[in-house]
């Protein structure tokens, strides 16, 4: 798994590639929580290059979303360019109700 974090004008773009399994998910969680702790509350997670995600990865995203939503004013974590096979897992665990998904990265970044 590789993570690239890039500061945009109104949000942080976090691009994740490779496999987010139980051995790599803690690193994703660390990066997301690090950004939130440093004051960033609007985050785009681009999953274009991610071909596997386990519940540990899903929990890392959910935990980040919960944290930014509690901030005043609240922030958001949105998902961009997710692959269909991964999207199925998100839908199965009800994340389609919690996260906003964007087919295009520019729309995700532009949503903030």
């Amino acid at each position, binding site marked *: 798994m590789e993570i690239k974090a890039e500061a945009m004008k109104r949000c942080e773009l976090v691009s994740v590639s490779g496999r987010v*399994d139980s051995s790599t998910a803690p690193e994703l969680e660390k990066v997301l929580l690090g950004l939130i702790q440093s004051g960033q509350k609007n985050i785009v997670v681009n999953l274009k290059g991610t071909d596997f995600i386990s519940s540990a990865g899903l929990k890392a995203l959910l935990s980040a979303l919960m944290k930014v*939503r509690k901030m005043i004013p609240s922030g958001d974590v949105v998902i961009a360019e997710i692959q269909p096979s991964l999207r199925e*897992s998100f839908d199965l665990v009800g994340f389609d109700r919690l996260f906003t998904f964007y087919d295009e990265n520019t729309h995700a970044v532009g949503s903030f």
Partner: protein
Amino acid sequence: MNKEVASERSETLERGTTLRMKALLKNVPRALECVGKWAEEAGFDERALYEIQLAVDEACANVVDHAYQEVDAGDIEVSCQLDGQVLTVRVRDWGQGFDLGCVAEPDLTAPLEERCLGGLGLFLVKQMMDQVEFISDPEQGNELIMRKRLEIAG
């Protein structure tokens, strides 16, 4: 495929494969790779391979997080076997026993502020596999047995 090769292949698949390793998160990808390669050889398609690997990841993570949580990491054994058209994956540990019945089903429709971070792993295992069985023994440890039918295209 000639008869001899086909029969050799079927014997190999019936014999199955076993991987034993230290129950550490960093070792989990080895189990996924091993089971993935083997299930591909058995004829599972890309979608089923994803589902099987996801179930194995969750099962192994469960062992690391729960079975050995208060003791030094012991071993984890992952084995798979094809019996007819049914794949059986066993994930075994020698850690503390636990009652799977106590794991609450996640509320998937709860609003964000009421969502619980836990419980998704076991839920996904049940969704990905056709049949899931759990045996826990205070002396012998735990075994999660997961089965998936090989769908024949056409």
